[in-house]
Each structure stands twice: as structure tokens, then as C-alpha cells.
């Protein structure tokens, strides 16, 4: 076997289309007009709708009109409720981001520009359906009416922190709200959501599960294992991939987004896949409804790619100016989810600038009031501390002898220092 004539091999190294100092460039995106994508029947076989993964379900057009077969035809009250949920999520983010800058907590993560992804989903599924989110779906809790004060107390790690000072700020969990614990290690929630959904079916329950993952974390094995299980057992689950273009400093091409869409991952597994305009509340809502309907009628799982943009830094520890053009967020071709829904409400004569401004003010006040209450229980910079030896609890159901010993020793040491 002679190889004398073969040329040396070489590697492809993906590079984002633009870097700091360059013009932001989104010209390579193919964005179909709103309303042009057909809406298949929810009983359709996954194999019949493979083309859905290469397009983009869009409902709101450039003039704020809802067009096409995916229009969920929500009434004006529901639309206003949606607008409020997204605006409240943003107001909460802005407030907590400022509190972090003032040292009242050590860490915060915003979801600016991605509010529709979580808020529309929360409105499209039932309140007792189970959510397995990442750190960027605070909109689920906000929309489900979870206490803002409790969220803040968790962030402040104060004496009212529902998680007893154990978890990183924003890594909420609430059994009552159907909001699973956010994992610090990416991707683990996706197979768990599938397992929850399989168990729901096994127990002849009617509830479904939904998982979220960033596009970056789809590179984790867990995502792919989950896809296999979800299709093999036709689990009643919705797997949401939030493609916000960035995974900290890595653009989506590092996760394989240049070669195929993230929705296209569904095809290889034989799963139904949709790709939606993630900044279009109505499109996200309609797609989630479609997927939930399939799950509830035992048609199996759906993968939804939400095509969106992370408008701000990854977290308070990140500086996007180091890796992307500073005006990239402004150039994002799919706009802002709040502005777009507002435009729609105005276009149908159900909203105006005054009411919008008044609502904005009301939500800021709501945040302030919640903030005052939460801070009365302490912030990170303050004195209030959770019970000193509480970390010896909840390691096991019952505290075993060796932890009793270690707790007593720690207590003795504490006493000795304070003497």
C-alpha cells in the first residue's frame, strides 16, 4: 500500500465571522419572512417534517403583524400578560445586575434578549409540567409567579435563602414551582428531563417535561444520550436548544453550528425538530404548544432550536468586548423580543407608549419593593448569615455519626477562636 502520492492532511479550525474591531456581520444567516413556514399537524411523523429544521418559524413580521399558520391567535389580555412577564424578567435582571456591581452578591447572569424563550414556554405549557432549565431561564420562574423576594434571598444567600446558603446565586430550585435545580455542570438536566417524562408516562400521569440547554452545551454527551432515550421511548418531553450564538467566548461554530443547524440534530435520532425565531414571542409560544401537544398525545419528543442572541455578557465575570464586535448586539437581525411584542400590541390597537412606560415604571417599583424586603433579611455584604453549622444537614437524610463528630469538632474550633 503506497501513500507516496497522497497530500498531507490538514485540519479545519472554525472562526467566527467577525471579531472585536470588525463590523458585526450576520449576512450569512438565511432568515425567511414571517408566516411562510407551514404548520404540520401535530400527529405528523418526524420523518415527514425534516425540512422544518432548516428554516425558521416566525410569526411577527417587520411591521409587528402576526402572520401565517403558526399564529397562536392569543387574545389581547394574554399578550399583555406575556409582555409583562418579559418586562418583569428584564427589570429583575437589571436590578440584580446592579446589586452585584454594588457588592450585594458575588455573581449574576442575565438573559437579556432571550426573555421570549423562557416566558413563552412557561405560558405555553401547563403550570404543573416539569421544567429542567439552565441558568438563563429565570423567565420561567418569573412567569410562573414564583416569589421575586425568594429569588433575591437566594441571590443574597441571606437568612431567608430557600436553599440555605448552599447554592451559587441564580442557581434556583423550587419543587413547588416545577423548576428543577440548575446544574453547575452543563447538560445533566437533559437526560433527567427525559427520565422524568418517561416516569410520567410509566405512572400514567398526564404531565410532560421540558429541558433547556445552551447551544454550546449540546456538545456534551448528556445531550446526545438524552436524544437517544427520548426517541427510543417516545418520551413526552420537549428538548429546547437555546442558540444564543455564544457559549462564553466561543461562537456557535465551535459547537458544530457552522455545519448544520442545532435543530438538525433531531434528524439523526428520528425526532421531530423545529427551528424558531427565539426573539418572536408568538413563534416560541406556538412551537412549544405544538411540541406539548405531540408529547401529550404520545407522539413523542420534539427538539426546538430557539434562534436568538445573548445580548449581554455571559455573566458578571465575562467581558464580551474581548471576543466579539461591540455593536454586534445592536445588529442582531431578529430584534428584541420585548420591542417586537410591544410593536405587535400597538399595531393591533391594544397598547400604546404611555401604557408601556407606565408598565415599565410599575415593574421597576415592584422590583424595588421586593428588593427592600429581600435586603431586610441580609445581603452578601451584610451581617446576616445562615445558621453556622447547617451544612452538616442534608448531606444525607439523617446525619451519620462521622458528620456528628465533625460537626462537634467544627463547633469546638469555632468556640475556641471566638474566645
Amino acid at each position: 500500500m503506497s501513500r507516496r502520492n497522497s497530500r498531507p492532511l490538514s485540519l479545519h479550525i472554525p472562526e467566527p465571522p467577525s471579531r472585536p474591531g470588525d463590523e458585526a456581520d450576520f449576512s450569512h444567516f438565511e432568515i425567511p419572512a414571517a408566516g411562510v413556514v407551514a404548520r404540520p399537524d401535530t400527529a405528523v411523523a418526524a420523518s415527514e417534517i425534516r425540512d422544518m429544521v432548516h428554516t425558521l418559524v416566525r410569526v411577527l413580521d417587520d411591521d409587528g403583524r402576526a402572520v401565517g399558520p403558526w399564529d397562536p391567535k392569543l387574545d389581547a389580555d394574554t399578550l399583555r400578560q406575556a409582555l409583562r412577564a418579559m418586562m418583569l424578567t428584564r427589570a429583575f435582571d437589571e436590578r440584580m445586575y446592579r446589586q452585584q456591581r454594588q457588592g450585594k452578591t458575588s455573581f449574576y447572569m442575565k438573559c437579556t434578549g432571550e426573555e421570549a424563550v423562557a416566558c413563552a414556554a412557561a405560558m405555553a405549557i401547563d403550570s404543573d409540567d416539569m421544567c429542567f432549565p439552565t441558568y438563563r431561564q429565570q423567565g420561567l420562574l418569573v412567569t410562573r409567579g414564583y416569589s421575586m423576594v425568594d429569588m433575591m434571598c437566594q441571590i443574597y444567600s441571606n437568612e431567608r435563602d430557600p436553599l440555605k446558603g448552599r447554592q451559587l446565586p441564580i442557581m434556583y430550585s423550587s419543587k413547588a414551582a416545577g423548576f428543577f435545580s440548575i446544574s453547575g455542570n452543563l447538560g445533566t438536566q437533559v437526560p433527567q428531563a427525559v427520565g422524568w417524562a418517561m416516569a410520567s408516562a410509566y405512572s400514567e400521569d398526564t404531565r410532560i417535561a421540558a429541558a433547556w440547554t445552551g447551544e454550546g452545551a449540546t456538545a456534551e454527551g448528556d445531550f446526545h444520550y438524552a436524544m437517544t432515550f427520548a426517541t427510543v421511548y417516545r418520551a413526552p418531553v420537549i428538548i429546547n436548544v437555546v442558540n444564543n450564538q455564544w457559549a462564553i467566548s466561543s461562537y456557535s461554530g465551535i459547537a458544530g453550528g457552522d455545519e448544520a443547524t442545532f435543530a438538525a440534530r433531531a434528524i439523526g435520532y428520528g425526532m421531530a425538530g423545529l427551528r424558531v425565531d427565539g426573539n418572536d414571542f408568538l413563534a416560541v409560544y406556538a412551537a412549544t404548544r405544538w411540541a406539548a401537544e405531540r408529547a401529550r398525545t404520545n407522539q413523542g419528543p420534539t427538539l426546538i432550536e430557539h434562534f436568538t442572541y445573548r445580548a449581554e455578557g455571559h455573566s458578571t465575570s465575562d467581558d464580551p468586548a474581548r471576543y466579539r464586535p461591540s455593536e454586534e448586539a445592536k445588529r442582531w437581525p431578529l430584534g428584541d423580543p420585548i420591542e417586537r411584542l410591544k410593536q405587535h400590541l400597538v399595531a393591533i390597537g391594544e397598547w400604546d407608549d404611555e401604557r408601556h412606560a407606565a408598565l415599565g415604571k410599575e415593574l421597576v417599583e415592584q422590583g424595588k419593593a421586593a428588593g427592600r424586603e429581600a435586603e431586610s433579611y441580609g445581603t452578601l455584604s451584610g451581617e446576616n448569615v445562615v445558621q453556622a453549622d447547617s451544612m452538616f444537614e442534608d448531606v444525607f437524610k439523617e446525619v451519620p455519626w462521622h458528620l456528628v463528630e465533625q460537626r462537634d469538632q467544627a463547633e469546638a474550633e469555632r468556640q475556641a477562636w471566638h474566645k
Partner: protein
Amino acid sequence: MRNSTQKLSYLQAIVEAQREEMRRDERVILMGEDIAVYGAQSLFDEFDHSRLRNVPISENSFTGVGVGAALTGLRPIVDLTIASFVYLASDQIINQAAKLRFMTGGQLKVPIVVRTSTFYNNRTAAQHADRPYPLFMNIPGLKVVAPATASDAKGLLKAAIRDDDPVIMFEDINLWGKKEEVPVDVDFLVPIGKADIKRAGSDATIVSVAGCLLPALAAAELLAREGIDVEVVDLRTIAPMDKETILASVAKTGRLVIADNSHKVGSVASEIAAVVSEEGFESLRKPIQRVATPSVHIPYNQALERQLYPTKERIVAAVRAIL
């Protein structure tokens, strides 16, 4: 040149170690998440990008990619950032990298270096604050190093890169900014498997594991003021452990305190204590003391977290208890 030094932080020393080895040997490559912006920016400025990979978020995959590359003779450095991410890559590390030489009857070698940092005492909570050295010292075929100074970080990392077996290096983010004079000689290596006496003494021995060197030295300072002369042995390599240096020190002092920030049950301290009680029992005048982290998960709240790790006060108390 041979004896000259340069003031570097622990983190800079690690970058310099990689730079020097990449210059010296083009088989050295580096992979990790976000490293082009966070961690290895200056290396991206210097070296051909085919040697530096900003990889997909897939720890077991890129560690496996590193193993595959190592089989061809490359010397991959895999940056797993946070110590608890090593769990995700542990199938490739434990079942593959560490076992391949053995399973192939010695045909294969896997000269891979896995770098990772322990993020404890920094409000990173239960899933990011692990110090899992003892789990990995239990793996045959894997060398485990945990430097506590800039010079040791540089010398051990360079030795790890040149080593023909897989090495995992635990770095300590609490030391990242600590500066000292670091040898500039490109062949400066710290031998894997050698502990270092960071302070000589005769009344008691403190063996410090990884970042516990600092509280151990501070404890020795405090005790010195009371006329108690403590020897501090910095373990540096966790596996294979330098039992000779430890046993020699205990033979001299007769008293042993081990400071280890891993969880107490099954800790590195436990292994040291076992070795000394098996082989140095005669020299011990008092029971061995382990100052470690209680076997609970790490809470976010700093007031809680701070109480958990070995401090100079806890180490002093342990030494006093056996005087």
C-alpha cells in the same frame, strides 16, 4: 542564565511552563474551553493555532481526543478548568489514559497532561469547589501532582509534559496571584514524586497537601514565636507519594500533623497517616492528626464555607494537641 530567576505569579509560571515546552517540542499541543480568551491568550499570540484548540464543551470528548493524539506521539495538555469537570472526563482518564499501557502489554504510552484547578474558598458552591485529589490517587497508572508555589507549578508542569505517563495536575486558584522568583532555565524541572521541605524543624512535622502549604507555613510561624520548631513538608506530588521524605521527617520529630483540604474520609491525609503508621510507627510519640475538610458538600455562603478548610488556627491547634 542557569541560575537566574524571574518574578512570576503562580498562574504566569504555568503559562510560561507551557510556552517553554511548546517552544522546545512541537509535539506539545494545548486544548481547553475558551482558552483563546481566558487562560492562554498569549500562547495564541505566539503559536500556530493548529497547536492550540478552543474546544467544544465536551470534557470527556476532548480528553479522549487528547488520548488519541497522545497515542500518535503528541504531548497534549488538556485544560479541564474546574476540578469537578474532571468527573465528566474521568472515563477517558481512568479507564483509558491510565490503563492503556498496562492493557496493551506495554505497547502504548499516553503522555497526556490533564490540568485542572481547585476553586475552593471562592464562593463557587458544591458543584465547583471540589478538591478531588484522593479519588485520583486511587487510580493506578496515573500520576497526580499538586504544586503550591509558582516555581513548583512551573517545574512540575514541565516535568509532567515530558513524562511518558498520564499526569493530572491540580492547581489552586487561591495561589494564582502569588508571586515569587522562579527559575528561568528552560530545563528547570521539579521531579515528579519528590516532596520538598519548605521549612526545617525538629519538634513536629506538618505535611501539607496542595494549597495547604500556606496555612501550614503560617502555623509554623505562629508556633515558632512560642519556641516550637516545626518542619513543613510540602507533598507536591500526591501519587506516587514521597514516603521517604515524610518518614525521615517523622523519624526526626516524632509528631505528625497532616493538612489536607480534601474531605477527611478517604483523604490524602488518610493515606499518609496509613503509611506512617505502618512504616514509621516506632518513631511516633503521639497519635497522627489529620486537619482536613469535613465530609460535607461545599456551601456557597462564605461564612459557612470558610469554616471548612484547614486554617493556620486549626493546624496550630492540632500541633499543640500532640506536643
